[in-house]
C-alpha cells in the first residue's frame, strides 16, 4: 500500500539558490507554522527571500513549474520544522540537489518523498551557474541513482538502499516498524526492570 507519493524519475528545469547554510527559518518563517494542516505552506516557501529580492528565482515566471531545486551546502539547517519540507513539496519541488544537507532536514525529507541528492562540489557549482537562465533541464532518476545534465553528461549519486526502496514504493516507516512489534514488546519487557521514569501524574 502506497502511503506517501512514489519517487522515480524527475525531469525539470533546475532552479538555482546559490546560498550555503539556508536554514529552515528562511525556507518557511515561524509565523506560518501555526496551521494544524500539512498543506498550504507552498505559497510561503522562501518568503523572506522572495519579499526582499524581486529577482529571486521563485519570483521569476521563467522558473514556473521547476521541480528541481539546486543549492549549496548545509541546506535545511536550524529548526527541525518538517513544515520546511512541506513548503518545498507544496511549491512543487520533488528534488533538491546540494553539496550537503542538515541531518534533521534529511530525515524529514525522506518522510515526504522529497528526494535529496548530494553531488560533488564542482558539479553543484556548475549546475548553479548554468541554471541561472531557467532553461537548464536536468533529469534525476532514483532507480539508477543518476543525474543527467542537458549535454548528456551523467553523474551518479549515493543513496541509502533501504530509503530508496521506500521512496520507489511510497512506503513510510510506521508499517515497517510495526512489523517488528513482537521485538519491540520483548525489548520493552526486558527494559522494564531498569525503567525509572514515567510521566504518569504529571
Amino acid at each position, binding site marked *: 500500500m502506497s502511503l506517501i507519493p512514489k519517487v522515480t524519475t524527475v525531469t525539470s528545469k533546475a532552479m538555482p539558490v546559490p*546560498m550555503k547554510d539556508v536554514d529552515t527559518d528562511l525556507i518557511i518563517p515561524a509565523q506560518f507554522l501555526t496551521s494544524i494542516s500539512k498543506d498550504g505552506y507552498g505559497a510561503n516557501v522562501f518568503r523572506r527571500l522572495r519579499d526582499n529580492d524581486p529577482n529571486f528565482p521563485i519570483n521569476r515566471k521563467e522558473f514556473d513549474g521547476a521541480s528541481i531545486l539546486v543549492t549549496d551546502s548545509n541546506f535545511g539547517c536550524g529548526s527541525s520544522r518538517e513544515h520546511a519540507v512541506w513548503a518545498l513539496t507544496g511549491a512543487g519541488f520533488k528534488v533538491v540537489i546540494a553539496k550537503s544537507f542538515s541531518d534533521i532536514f534529511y530525515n524529514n525529507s525522506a518522510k515526504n518523498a522529497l528526494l535529496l541528492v548530494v553531488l560533488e562540489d564542482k558539479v553543484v557549482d556548475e549546475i548553479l551557474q548554468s541554471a541561472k537562465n531557467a532553461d537548464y533541464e536536468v533529469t534525476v532518476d532514483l532507480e539508477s541513482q543518476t543525474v543527467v545534465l542537458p549535454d548528456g553528461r551523467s553523474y551518479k549519486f549515493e543513496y*541509502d538502499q533501504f530509503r530508496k526502496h521506500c521512496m520507489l514504493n511510497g512506503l513510510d516507516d510506521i508499517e515497517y516498524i510495526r512489523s517488528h512489534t513482537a521485538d519491540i514488546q520483548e525489548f520493552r519487557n526486558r527494559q522494564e526492570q531498569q525503567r525509572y521514569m514515567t510521566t504518569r501524574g504529571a
Partner: protein
Amino acid sequence: MSAAATKKAPEKAGKKSVETAPESSGSGATAKNIVQKIWDAHVVTRIEGHPNVFAIDLMLLHEVTSAQAFQLIETRGIQVFDPTRLLATIDHSTPTRQNRWEIYDEAARTQVETLRSNCKKHNIPFLDFDSGKQGIVHVVGPELGVTQPGMTIVCGDSHTSTHGAFGALAFGVGTSEVAHVMATGCLLQKQPQSMKVEFKGRFRRGVYAKDAILKLIGEIGVGGANGHVIEYVGEAVRAMSMEERMTVCNMSIECGARAGLIAPDETTFNYLKGRAHAPCAEKWDEAVEYWKSFASDENAKYDKSVVIDLDKLEPIVTWGTNPAQSVSLGERIPKLETMAANDKAVAVRALEYTKLKEQQVLEGTPVEWAFVGSCTNGRIEDLRIVAEILKGRKVNPAVTMYVVPGSEAVMKRCQEEGLDEIFCAAGADFRMPGCSMCLAMNDDQVPPGKRCISSSNRNFVGRQGPDSITHLASPATVAASAIAGCITSPAQYV
C-alpha cells in the same frame, strides 16, 4: 544481535550529513563512548542493510509539531503506544502577557486547543497554563525529573539536544517521526558518529556557558558537526552546574550536531534527587548505579575531536545571520578577505542585513530591544545573573527589555527570591513563561529594522520578526547592554 554481525555498512546517504560508523559500535570487548553505550542499549533490531528499529524512552510534545502527527495516527486507526512515555506542554505560539488564556491569533488558539484536546483524548499528561508546571518544553522536562541519564529523548524541536546535559541521547525530529514514536515508541535510525569536544580551563569574570558554546560554534561552523553527536568533556564541563550544561547542550544543533551530551556525575544526581518524576527513595541507589554506567570508557574512540580553551575566553556576541558569525567583545568583525570564498559571500549578505561593516567593533553598537529567556537561557540561574546586574540600575530609556522565565516554576522562584521586583524596578518587562521573542511565532516580536540583543539561540534572517536584527549573547551581556543602550561587556558589573 551484535553490531559486529552487520557485515556491510549501509550506503552513505550523504557526504557530510548522514553517515554510519559500524566499526566504532563495537562488541563488549571494545572501549565504547557514551553515545555508543546509549545506542546499544536502545537498539531493538539490527538487520543488515536496514536502519535500526530504535527505542525512544521519552517524547516531549508541544503545540507546533504535534497536530499533524495526531492526525496521522488517527487516520490509520493506531492507538498511542505508551502515553506514560509522553509529556506535552504549550510554549511556542502562546502569549506571554498576563491574560494569556486569551489567545488573539486564531490559528495559534486552534493549535493550542488541538493539543489540549488530543492529550485528553489519548490520555497524555499535559502541562497547561497555571498548572504550576507549564513552560518551555526543554525547561520543564528537566525540572520535573523526567529527563534522566541514559535515556533516549525526542521532541519535534531541534533544541531537544538540551536534555543531553543529563547524559541522555536527545535529539529533534520532524512531525512525521513524532507520529512514528506515538504509534510505536520507536524510530528507524542510523547510528550517528561521535565528536569529542573538550572545554579546558575556567571562565573568567563575566564569561559564561553561553560564551563557551558560541565559541565552539564559531570555531567549527554551522555545519561542523553534521552527522555527529557531541560529547562534552573536560574540567570546565565538570565544574558547570546542570543549567550551564543545558545551555551548552542546547546549542549543539547550531553547529550541525544531531545531539550533544555530558556524562552524568554527582552534579547530575544531586539535581535529580527529589524531583517529581525522579526515581523514588527505594529505587534511588539502584537508579544511580545504572546511570553511572553511561560514561565513556577510558580508551573510547571518537570520529572527531576538538579542544576549546576557556581561560582566555571573552564574552561573545554574534554579528551576522547565523550563530557561527560571532566575535569576542573587544574584537572587530573579521575582514572579508580573510574568509573562504563561500563564507565571504554569506558574510557579505549577513552584514548587509545586520547593517554592520567588516572590521567594525561590535561593542558600542546601539540596541533597541533586549530579550532574556528561551530554552537556552531562561532558567533561574540565568535570571539571577540578570537580576544581579540590574539591581539598583535602570534599563536604558531607548531600550525595551523583556525578561521571560522559562517555566511557571522558574517564574515562581523569581517571585520568591524577589527577582521580579528587581526586573520591574529596573524598567524591564517581566512576563509569563513561554518561548516568547526567541522566534516570531507569538505576539512577542522585534519590530522591523530594530536591533535586539538576545539570550536565545538563533539569529537567522527574520528570526525574531521580519527585518529584525538579532545579536546572540549570554544573559549577563544582554543585561549589561540593556543598561548601556548598546552592546557591552558584563565584566564591569559582576
